[in-house]
């Protein structure tokens, strides 16, 4: 009985990152945009969880959350899934080639990921004739990069609290 209860409880805990992923998409919090401050939480979220616990965040769910973000932010449908999957691809690649993951290596490898994600975003908007705000892109990239350690720490706490192990 006891074992069964623990298993069920664990199953629910595993869903927290997934729940958060769809919450930030549906609630329109993928990008927190204040006057001079803009962070793309979605990018950090996908990168971190695919890098750390790929078994929790399915690629199909990442794709769906991208579609939701596109609709909420009136972006061309398919653009955000593509960018998020590019980030997930890089995270998956880094996971395979890296032996030991820590904050510094994560953070540094996030730089090329962010650059490529933004270039892809720029290309999509350019091809589809959407207005491009270069300053917004720049500010968003800088603050997303700077905020990575803060969100990293929060997600680490979440991993510790929920006790989600890599090989479970």
């Amino acid at each position, binding site marked *: 009985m006891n074992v069964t209860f623990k298993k069920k409880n664990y199953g629910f805990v595993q869903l927290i990152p997934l729940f958060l992923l769809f919450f930030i998409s549906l609630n329109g919090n993928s990008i927190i945009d204040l006057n001079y401050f803009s962070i793309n939480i979605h990018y950090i979220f996908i990168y971190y969880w695919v890098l750390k616990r790929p078994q929790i965040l399915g*690629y*199909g769910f990442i794709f769906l959350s991208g579609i939701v973000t596109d609709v909420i*932010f009136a972006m061309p449908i*398919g653009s955000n899934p593509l960018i998020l999957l*590019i980030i997930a*691809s890089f995270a998956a690649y880094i996971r395979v080639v890296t032996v030991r993951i820590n904050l510094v290596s994560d953070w540094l490898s996030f730089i090329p990921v962010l650059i490529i994600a933004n270039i892809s975003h720029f290309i999509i908007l350019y091809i589809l004739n959407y*207005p491009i705000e270069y300053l917004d892109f720049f500010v968003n990239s800088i603050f997303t990069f700077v905020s990575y350690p803060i969100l990293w720490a929060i997600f680490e706490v979440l991993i510790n609290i929920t006790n989600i192990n890599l090989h479970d």
Partner: protein
Amino acid sequence: MDTSRDDIGIVIRSAFIKKGAQQRFSLFALIIFSIILIYVETIKSKPFDYFRSFIKDTIYRGSAVVSSPAKGIKFFSNSFREHIKVFEENSRLKEENKVLKEKKYYNSFLIVENNELKKIIDENQAVSSNLVTTRVILDKKSPYLNSFIIGSGSNKKIKNSMPALDGLNFIGRIVNVNFFSSRILLVTDLNSKIPVVIEPEGYNAILSGRGDSKPSLDYLPKNHTLKSGNKVYTSGKEGIFKPGIPIGEVILNNSTPLVNLASDINQITFVNIDLGSKNN
């Protein structure tokens, strides 16, 4: 060399093509599917439009449900703030009411006189508007678009480019219509360009959104004599909107004239969509 090339191949296969332990789809397949979706987005055809409308309606409803707690908190904090300044506002409103009462008699005289003059020049009488009132279901700030999602669409005969009003004040236009929802592009958005007329001088200009709460006035005559407080109305020049819908007041700030909107965009819960005249 061969071994190292093999290693890279294995890494790429493992990361992109294989599905992984608990993955149902491979990254590569989903990336290709995303590219196909982007391509489909550029195709304009009725079946695709219906499909897109269905997806958008579903997501908007889901989003409205998920963001309802945040909306509730915002509502309570706004009511609390309003309660705090109720005394101050009451005295201001009393003063304003006094002035308006005085103006009222003069205005009614002007309306009668205006109608008489219109009859004389054989102009069509103003027809009553056909307004649809609907609730704002989503007002998410996006860095790419300042817009509202409203809970009515083609089911209420809403069409693209119809003006959206807060009370009787112009706040934006419809840019995307689904079955049960529509998107309003606000005048504050970077893409918004509205032909306006500024009274009392009667200057024509273009009201351009800047991404913040105060849009600017472009293409004014070179030697204009605008003053702060001049009223801005739609000019109806492009034939899209009716002329004379109030938008706001001019603020002269440095070199660029800005417009203080008559409606506070952040406090809007219901909007009126002008479906055009009933006679049309």
